[in-house]
């Protein structure tokens, strides 16, 4: 299986004035196959958004890529010049961020903005471009798209704006759609509509998608494969079935156990403690201070566990969990 997007040992962070390195994303490796939906799951500060900003070449200063590789269709993106990255973004890599106003220009008409996104990457005459803008808006469920295209972003609701952003992301038929918490800011009924719009738009075009989210509900509904991040590292990856039916890493299991069930009054399971801040990550396994295994294994707080490939294409970064799980290690990998 050839990877469309392949991230290898990506390490991202910043250097303090004292010359010390603070690492936010630590040796992350991910593969995205053609047409696949990969959910990148983690809590705030886990490094999931920073990973994808690094892929897009959009890291805000002072963040930088310390090491590692990002390949898109085999071409290396780390160290590529701005022009190459700019051409890729919006054409091959579509983006949807949580706040539509990070994408939309408040003083330009929505239709004009989508038209410009088209013009940057495609040669179309003015009439064809207008027609395409209206098509794109209609495809994301904007009523009366021809008239609405003339509106400014502030005249639209949050849900409508995010539809416009999805239309813009799909404008050039990208190979990969990167959606970072695309519906988190929206109400639940609008969130459901938007996820359907996004999923349908993606399915129609056959694009692969990286969906960044903290919501296990969205993961279960939309993922093919899942990567769980904690304290800057990927701690478990697998198919959506492996992750939900048979999670192995204690953090993944803890997240699932803490999902609130239907039983009113019963006590919720809570992972003790809280996630470490990026500047104060513990040595060894980042999850060790909160983990049930760590008390029994000295190594947890001294040695950083690496992802070990297991049978069925999954991988887990937790030696004690692998030892106690009835899963064979994949020795061929």
């Amino acid at each position, binding site marked *: 299986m050839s990877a469309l997007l392949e991230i290898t040992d990506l390490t991202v962070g910043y250097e303090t004035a004292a010359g010390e390195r603070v690492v936010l994303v630590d040796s992350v490796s991910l593969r995205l196959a053609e047409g696949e939906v990969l959910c990148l799951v983690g809590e705030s500060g886990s490094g999931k958004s920073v990973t994808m900003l690094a892929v897009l070449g959009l890291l805000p200063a002072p963040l930088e890529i310390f090491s590692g590789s990002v390949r898109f269709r085999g071409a290396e993106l780390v160290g590529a010049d701005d022009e190459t990255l700019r051409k890729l973004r919006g054409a091959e890599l579509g983006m949807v961020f949580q706040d539509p106003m990070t994408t939309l220009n408040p003083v330009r008409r929505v239709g004009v903005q989508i038209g410009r996104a088209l013009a940057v990457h495609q040669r179309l005459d003015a009439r064809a471009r207008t027609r395409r803008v209206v098509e794109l808006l209609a495809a994301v469920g904007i009523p009366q798209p021809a008239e609405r295209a003339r509106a400014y972003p502030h005249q639209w609701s949050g849900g409508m704006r995010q539809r416009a952003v999805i239309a813009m992301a799909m404008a050039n038929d990208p190979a990969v759609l990167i959606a970072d918490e695309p519906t988190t800011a929206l109400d639940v009924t*609008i969130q*459901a509509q938007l996820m359907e719009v996004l999923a349908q738009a993606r399915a129609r075009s056959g694009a692969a998608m990286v969906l960044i989210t903290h919501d296990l509900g969205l993961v279960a509904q939309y*993922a093919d494969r899942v990567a769980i991040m904690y304290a800057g590292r990927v701690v478990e990856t697998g198919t959506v079935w492996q992750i939900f039916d048979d999670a192995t890493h204690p953090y993944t299991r*803890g997240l699932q156990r803490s999902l609130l069930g*239907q039983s009113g009054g019963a006590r919720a399971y809570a*992972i003790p403690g809280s996630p470490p*801040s990026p500047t104060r990550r513990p040595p060894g396994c980042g999850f060790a201070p*909160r983990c049930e295994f760590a008390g029994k294994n000295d190594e947890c707080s001294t040695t950083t566990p690496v992802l070990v490939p297991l049978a069925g294409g999954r991988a887990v970064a937790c030696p004690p969990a692998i030892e106690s799980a009835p899963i064979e290690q994949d020795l061929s990998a």
Partner: protein
Amino acid sequence: MTTIDEPEDVIRVDRLEVSFTSRRGLLGTRRLRALDGVSFAVRRGETFGLVGESGGGKSTLVRTLFGINTPSAGSIRILGHDLATLRPQSRRALRNRVQLVFQDPYSSLDPRMTAHDIVAEPLRIAGGYRRERVVELLDQVGLGRDALARKPAEFSGGQRQRLGIARALAPGPEVLVLDEPVSALDASVQAQVINLLQDLQEQLGLSYLFIAHDLSVVRHLSDRIAVMHLGKLVEIGATEDVFTGPAHPYTRALIASAPVPDPHRRRRDTSTLVRGELPDAANPPSGCTFRTRCPLATADCATRVPELEPQGRTDHVAACLHPLARPSKGNR
């Protein structure tokens, strides 16, 4: 303050209406009815959940309960006292007995104050400051003595919300109004705060008005829930009755909209989702205000305003001309 006999209902809201007027340039003034005939009661010792989308009126309701907005009609009784007729002095005393916990612990706590000062402040105002009481309150929320000298920035999000709860508990309230208390927290920390709220309720005999948009949290915590749509309550009932057999199509849509964290139960049927967006509150649809988004709307929904009516089960009411039938056992 003289206490009237212990009322069964700690908060009782009757036909509450709150309107705002805004000037719109040459078009003159617009009147926006943020709350429209809202009636409900929070019973002593229970958790009453209030759900609905933003723009539905949840925040207006909280602000009105705490005297920030003034009702244009209807009444609010808190612990048996009618807010409208209460003298300012009694109103202040009553305020100690009903406390508010905010969503965002980052912005509701003064960043320059220590945990000690944050919790001590309401004690001093109420005239009951003792250092030991501060320690006791911090213990109660699971923070402990070593938190005393720390400032909000030194705490994690979950700890900050614990601090906010300790501050709310300081005046010795009987009722907590919890406005999205866990929605700013990470998933792994949410459950801790939810458990804390349940423990405190049990230990202190508190009553909760719990406002949230996350249905799984509301379902977990609430004994009864009310569903709000565009300034009106459209359904009230025991939590499990409402979740397993919603009578109002809006309630059903809210439940169906929440993504189920189980890949074996992927949503295939999108027909119960709402279409379109919340209508403009300043220019609401005639009749039932949900009809423009409702998959079951008929012509009479535009002409008749539905009232809350019993739905077969005790205490279960809904405002819909065509309420959904309760599914037979075994169905969802």
